[in-house]
Structure formats: C-alpha cells, structure tokens
C-alpha cells in the first residue's frame, strides 16, 4: 500500500511539476499557533508538511530553526504535541511527515514511534542524523508500520554511498542543496542540480531539495530538476519577524502561494 506522500509524488509527476513541502516545528509559535500555521500552509497551496520535533541539540539547524525549537521547548513541547500537530495536518487531507533527530525516537521507543506515525495518519519520518549503519531497528519498525523512511544526503556523499543510502529511502530522498545547516540563502547552491542528477542514477524514488530556498524564483529554479522543494526557515522568519500572530499567518499564507506558483513554473 502506498502512503499519501508516495501518492502525492505520483500526482505531481503527472502534472509535470514539483511538490511544495513546508516545515514547521510542533509547538511553534505555540501549540495552537502551529495548527494555524498548518492551516495557512494548506490555504496557500502547500502539497505536504513536515512537522519538526523540537530538539535541544539540533546540529543540522541554523539560527532560525534553533530559535523556533527553543521557543517550542520552553513551552514543554514533546512527542504528544508532535503527534497532535501531525494528526491536525493529516486530518486536513495533506500528506505529512515528522522530521526528528534520532534521540527522541529512541527515547520514545523505536517501534512505538513508527506506529504512532501511522496512527496519526503520517506518511513517514525524516531522520537527519540517523546513518544507515545505525538504522537496522528503525528499518524494521518502519516496515512493520508501513511508513516511509527518508534520509538526507549531501553534496559530499559519494556515488557508492548515495546508492546505499537511497536504497534505504522511500517516499522521497532529501537532498541537502549545500554543505551547511538549515537557513535561507540568497541563492540556491549550484551543487544541487549535480547532486540530484547523481541521485537519479541510483534510484527511482522522488527527490526533494532542501536548505536555502525562500523565494518563488528559487522554488522555480529547483522545481526545474527536483520532484519536491522544501522550505522551512523562510516561513519561520515570517513568524518570528511579524509584530503579531495574525500578520505572521497572513505572510506565511502569502509566501506559500508564491512558492506554490514557483514549483509550477519550473518546467
């Protein structure tokens, strides 16, 4: 059986465009506020949502997502809130996954975590610091709960290793566009097209590009060669910079609309 995420990529391939994937940490700006952001994503035309599990030691994240995670953690956000946000998204009919560092999964219980994803309508989990060498227990839990396991690859990943890592991926392969942490950049790295081309040699699975995308033009550029465009920090910046929640949500909706146009203009 395919997950909603897999079905999404079948659909967008049929429409000859890329999917827009938006990231928001659970509990940010508040637990209720997070639900409003999810609604704004959907209203703006986002195709799939990543719910972040805020973590105390996020080594893959830049200052923006760190600030959001700190804010969520200071309000006591944990697994319960993550699954609640996930359910909120999937109840709206949008494919959703959780993005989390490994320790919260291990602490929650590996099998239990995978099952909770299924139970809340989720399609899978992105694990940015789980290497395939350490993934045996996770793989079997993922298989049992019939969800997608999504790993992140980087420009420094060599071809032999790309083949091995992507063979563990389902749903999509998360291609980090550059060597660095999350955050907006003035331009998307020129290494991204090359990385996506190398990934395509080793797998049929969809490829989504993340790190550094914040504008319609950038989304358009990435959509030319990738199946999905992932945006996180740009949305969080809108929320952090807005004087009040209402205007923040309006800006999120507006940015989502622009990006949704971008992913349709790439080809």
């Amino acid at each position, binding site marked *: 059986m395919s997950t909603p995420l897999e079905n999404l990529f079948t659909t967008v391939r049929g429409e000859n465009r890329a999917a827009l994937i938006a990231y928001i940490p659970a509990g940010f700006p508040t637990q209720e506020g997070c639900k409003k952001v999810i609604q704004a994503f959907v209203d703006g035309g986002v195709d799939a949502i990543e719910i972040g599990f805020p*973590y*105390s*030691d*996020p*080594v*893959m994240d*830049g*200052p923006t997502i*760190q600030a959001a995670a*700190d804010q969520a*953690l200071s309000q006591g956000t*944990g*697994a319960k809130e993550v699954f609640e946000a996930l359910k909120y998204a999937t109840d709206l009919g949008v494919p959703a996954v959780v993005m989390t560092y*490994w*320790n*919260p*999964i*291990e*602490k*929650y219980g590996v099998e239990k975590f995978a099952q909770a994803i299924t139970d809340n309508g989720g399609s899978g989990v992105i694990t*940015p*610091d*789980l*290497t395939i*060498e*350490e993934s045996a227990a996770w793989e079997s839990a993922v298989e049992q709960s019939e969800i997608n396991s999504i*790993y*992140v*690859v*980087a*420009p*420094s*990943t*060599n071809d032999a*290793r790309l083949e091995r*890592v992507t063979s563990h991926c389902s749903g999509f392969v998360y291609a*980090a566009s550059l*060597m*660095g*942490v999350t955050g907006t950049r003035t331009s998307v790295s020129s290494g991204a097209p090359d990385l996506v081309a190398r990934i395509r040699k080793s797998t049929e699975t969809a490829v989504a590009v993340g790190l550094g995308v914040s504008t319609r033009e950038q989304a358009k550029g990435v959509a030319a060669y990738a199946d999905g465009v992932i945006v996180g920090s740009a949305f969080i910046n809108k929320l952090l910079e807005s004087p009040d929640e209402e205007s923040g949500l309006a800006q999120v909706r507006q940015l989502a609309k622009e990006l949704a146009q971008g992913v349709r203009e790439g080809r």
Partner: protein
Amino acid sequence: MTTTQESAIQAAAIAEIAGHFGPYGGRFVPEALIGALEELDAARLFAQTDPTFIAELAELHRTYTGRPSIITEAKRFSEQAGGARILLKREDLNHTGSHKINNVLGQALLTKRMGKKRIIAETGAGQHGVASATAAALMGLECVVYMGEEDTRRQSLNVARMKLLGAQVVPVTSGSRTLKDAINEAMRDWVTNVETTHYMLGTVAGPHPFPSMVRDFHKIIGEESREQVLALTGRLPDVVMACVGGGSNAIGIFHRFISDESVRLIGLEAAGDGVETGRHAATITGGSPGVLHGNRTYVLQDANGQTIESHSISAGLDYPGVGPEHAFLHDIGRAEYRAITDAQAMEAFSILSRTEGIIPAIETAHALAGAMQVGKELGPDAIILINLSGRGDKDVQTAAQYFGIPL
C-alpha cells in the same frame, strides 16, 4: 581473569572495529560529515603504523610536551586516604597544564597530513581550547574555538590565553551556553566547512572514529605509568583512578590496565550539588542510554529525549554525556563509576594543595576525593594510581571565591 570479563573484553575488541563499544558509540551525524569521518579514520589508522608519524609525535612529546610525565608519591596526602600508597601521574606538568596536549598534537599532525589548514575546537573550561590554540600556533594552522558564553565568563583567563596564542574565540549563545552547545556550534561549522577544516574534538566522545582516536592519543598516560609503577613498587597498582567528564584522561590512564585483571578502574564523575538534587553532571551514575553528539552513550535526558543541562563547579566536567567506551566498561563491570560532589572535590582540592604543594585542577580534585574514599576502604597496603590530569592555575579565581579568599 573471569571468563565473562575475558569474553567481554574480546567482544569490545571486535566491536570496536565497527566503531562500537558493545551497544555504544557508532555514528549519528548528518550524512554531510560521513566523508570527513571516513577520511579521518583512514588517516589515523594509517598513522598508527606509520613509523614517520610515530617518530614525529614521539619527538614532539619529548621536546615540546615534556613526556614522559613523572610519578609523584603523595606521602602526606596519603594520611588523608587511609594510609594507602598514593601515586600521582603528573599530567599537570605537561606543556599547557593538562593531559589535553597529548590529543591535540596527534590530531594537529593528522590535520596537516589530510591537507587541511583550519582547525575548530570546542572547549568548556578552556583547557582543550588552549591546547588546540597551542598546537595550531606550533603548526601554523588557523584555529577557531567555540566556547559557551557562560564559560567565557567563568574562564576569562583561558579566553585571553587562547587569543594570545592567535586563536579566534567564538562565544556560543545558543541553548544552555555551555560545553554541549559549543560542541553543537562546532559541528555546524564543520558541516559547512568540512573540505578545509578539521574538527579537533577534545574528548573520547563524538562520532566514530573520535572516541577511539582520542583514546589512542591519550593511552600513553597508562602505558608510561604502568611501567613507572612497576619500577617503583615492583607490582601493579590495586586501583587506577581518574575524573570523568567526557572521559579522555580516564580512558588514557585506564586503557593499558584493562587486561590487568587485578587492577580496579574507578572513574569519578561530578555530582555537583548531589546526584539526588538533579543538579549534577554524573552521566553514568544518574543518566540513561541515549544518543548525543554523534554517539550512543549514557546521557542526562528527560522523558522526550531532550538533553538536560548538567551542573558542576568544574567547567571541564560540566557535560551531560560521556565517552561510549566508559558506558561499555561500566555495563560489563570492568570499570566502576562513582560521583563526587562539589563540596567533596573542593575539600580534596584544598587537602592536596596543603599536603603536597600541588594545586590540582578542580576536575582532577574529583579523582583525589575518590581516592580519599577508596584509600580508607582499602587501607595502607593498597597502591592507588591517580591521573593528576591538570593543574589548578585556571581555577584560582573559582577556588578563591569558594573558600572566601578576597581577590
């Protein structure tokens, strides 16, 4: 040696080939770092058997570090430790004042071999930062040290030392603003600049190969002291003791003794205000298995797997994780871990200063406090070897404040 112990040690040796110590260790890092970790692993494995590298490092240790470090018998301190024979391995006499130099010289040589020109390091108390800045100055490498903002304030003297040595010190303002956040920030720098930069991790934690590599650069402490103790006393010590934060000085002195069945290995963790208060840094005593900073080990964490802030008077032990090899040695029962409070450590700090004329680092004072307990348990026939891992000059301000000495 018991069969269980033997097979556990064999298992350790086998497991280590894959970068694991039983269930601990491994690599939990962004994929972007895998290439660099493999390059580093290849470089250090090659260097281990390369006569040129071995000779170069040995020469540096002889002419720069000041190795071999001596053993001092602490006869007056012994009276406070049940009369047990107390032998101090004087790593405090190394250049830069602690054992940390052993590791940084090794890693700096590897950095040059890998053709990298820039090193980054994290530091808590500043000892590893100072050692890294020193090695960088000696070998002409650019050096950036990440240090929690809180620690830059607590250890301002070491910040000045690093700057004098030509390093750039970056105060880290994220998270709890201490050592763990400095490691996070160093990892972020590394992910971004991995092509030109080597991450000179300062303890036996982090992703493989760091725990094994850093141990191998420090195991000289145990190798030297085993011979020195044999020459001095005609037998092996009954107990080898060291303080444990990340655990580099402890693994360094333990390693050569692991196969000596009769030798007890005891690591002393920082109990801060007391393990029962929750304000401590005793990861093995008061933590649980989890993943932090790229390896599976014991971690201070809450029900959601979030790291809990650690507390200790000693900035160098103020870390919510511990090296994976210690986690394994604990689980198989080959090493014991006890927790020493701030108050117990400061008492031992004062006693060693007054009985032997040696002001130890507050980190090291935890090991001395442990030796006072164990000496009383074992009595005057016992020989206790202690890794005197660092000198206390950097701690004068903290200690003066603690003892109410006006500055």
